[in-house]
């Protein structure tokens, strides 16, 4: 089994900010049950005259220890940051905060950043605001990848939708 850093283990054992936010200002859903990782990220944004701050953030994750740890740590990184600050968070920031991830789990850090971007995209879209080009690009890429996975495993997706105990 891959070895995780102490930080990953701590976040995994006691994840921060898990759960959902009722009527969130933004919601990001990324990952795919086919691959075994799904992340939901919820944000509440407080807007004042000249700033907008993510005052609350929560996650729900189905996934391995790395997926849970990256979800937890990104909520720490984002909480009480401005939208602009949050958008500057990259996967390397997540990896650094966790003191590294095993190579095969690097994609989990990307998943967390994707979830954040999607939540902010959802927030801006809801407010009918202009979407920064980079964010629009990221959103498109996530959408395309989801479609690609679902096409590749279309039969298996149907099995899942057949019910939670579909094969019985």
């Amino acid at each position, binding site marked *: *089994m891959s070895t995780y850093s102490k930080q990953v283990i701590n976040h*995994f*054992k006691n*994840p921060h900010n*898990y*759960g*959902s936010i009722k009527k969130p200002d933004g919601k990001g*859903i990324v990952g795919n*049950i*086919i*691959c*075994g*990782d*799904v*992340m*939901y990220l919820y944000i509440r944004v407080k807007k004042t005259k000249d700033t907008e701050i993510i005052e609350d953030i929560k*996650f*729900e*994750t*189905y*996934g*391995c*220890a*790395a*997926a*849970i740890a990256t979800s937890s740590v990104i909520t720490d990184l984002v909480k009480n940051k401005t939208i602009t600050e949050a958008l500057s968070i990259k996967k390397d920031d997540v990896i650094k905060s966790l003191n590294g991830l095993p190579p*095969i789990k690097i994609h989990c850090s990307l998943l967390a950043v994707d979830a954040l971007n999607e939540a902010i995209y959802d927030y801006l879209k809801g407010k009918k605001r202009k979407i920064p080009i980079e964010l629009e690009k990221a959103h498109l890429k996530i959408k395309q990848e989801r479609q690609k996975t679902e096409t590749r495993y279309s039969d*298996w*997706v149907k*099995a*899942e939708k*057949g019910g*939670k*105990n*579909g*094969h*019985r």
Partner: protein
Amino acid sequence: MKSIYFDYAATTPVDPIVLRAMLPYFSKIYGNTMSLHEFGRHAHEAVEKSRSTIARIINAETSEIYFTGSATESNNLALKGVALANRHRGNHLIISAIEHDCVLESARYLSRNGYAVTILPVDKYGLVNIEELESLINEKTILISIIHGNNEVGTLQDLEKIGRICRNKKVYFHTDASQSYAKELIDVKKMNIDLLTASSHKIYGPKGAACLFVRKSVLIDPILHGGGHENKLRSSTLNVPAIIGFAKAAEITVKSRNTENQRLLKLRDKLISGILGNIKDTYLNGHPTKRLANNINISFPFVEGESLVMQLDFAGIACSTGSACSSTTLEPSHVLIALGLPPQGAHGSLRISLGRWTKESDINYLLKVLPAIVKKFRRISPFKN
């Protein structure tokens, strides 16, 4: 801090009696079995005695047992060796969809090199359909390889029925019995088995010893060439202490087979009904009765398997999962997919395998801690009810 081992299907500790039997062969009787002098002769005699012990357990002839370094090697030798030696007869192989990776990958290798491989599907319990198997055999078919006790879900195939069909159709029948050798009754004559893989470290023997039973009449080529050990089928200096340990381990396992299987069955079924009864939305994978006495495989939807295994590890419990996240390829277990499990069932599976040192109190402890662990991850999961 508790430390409970529930991963006997992965490997087993060496039985102290086995270890004692092995020790002289490291530094006292250390000769090379191929040497003509006394040192070599003594080692040779001990290995031949072991060979005979291992053969007797499956009603094989002593000369039909070939020692190898691992079950992976035995399975590679069975598939590649038979395919290469029988190219003049045909190029078609049939394997089940729930073979161990070493059979699956050997078959894939052959299919990239001019052989045709058919994958025989299994039903939701992991059983192959005998009629379907029969219908897949053609005049080019040279080998059928079907695992006896599945390593992940524990399903036991009916070797006798499969063997009869193979014999009638004049196709060689290989079975990977890594999980069942010495633990389940196998008679290669009665069951018409032509090749069989057995492993030492699954029955409380050391790692590094395994064997392939090859019926005398079977045409097979070596895949390791060299000094001509093992009747020219497997060149390599024999790992004498490991072979001695393998035979001792097999002997002990057979001697206690009936009582031990009864004991394990009771513990197994208590654990299964305890989990299914106390944690909602769970289900058993594999066959309810036609399964290895020590295997439990249960799916926990809304929870990912690697998380479960890690949290259980923190609680002092060692088991394993078929989840993608825990594999080196990030693909979920092909066995669980072949059984028709949906993604959540495959990613959320837990394999708990019992063994000689599993106590009832271990089962009780697992039953006590597991519900809260599952609940924790279901609370974090977006898919919870």
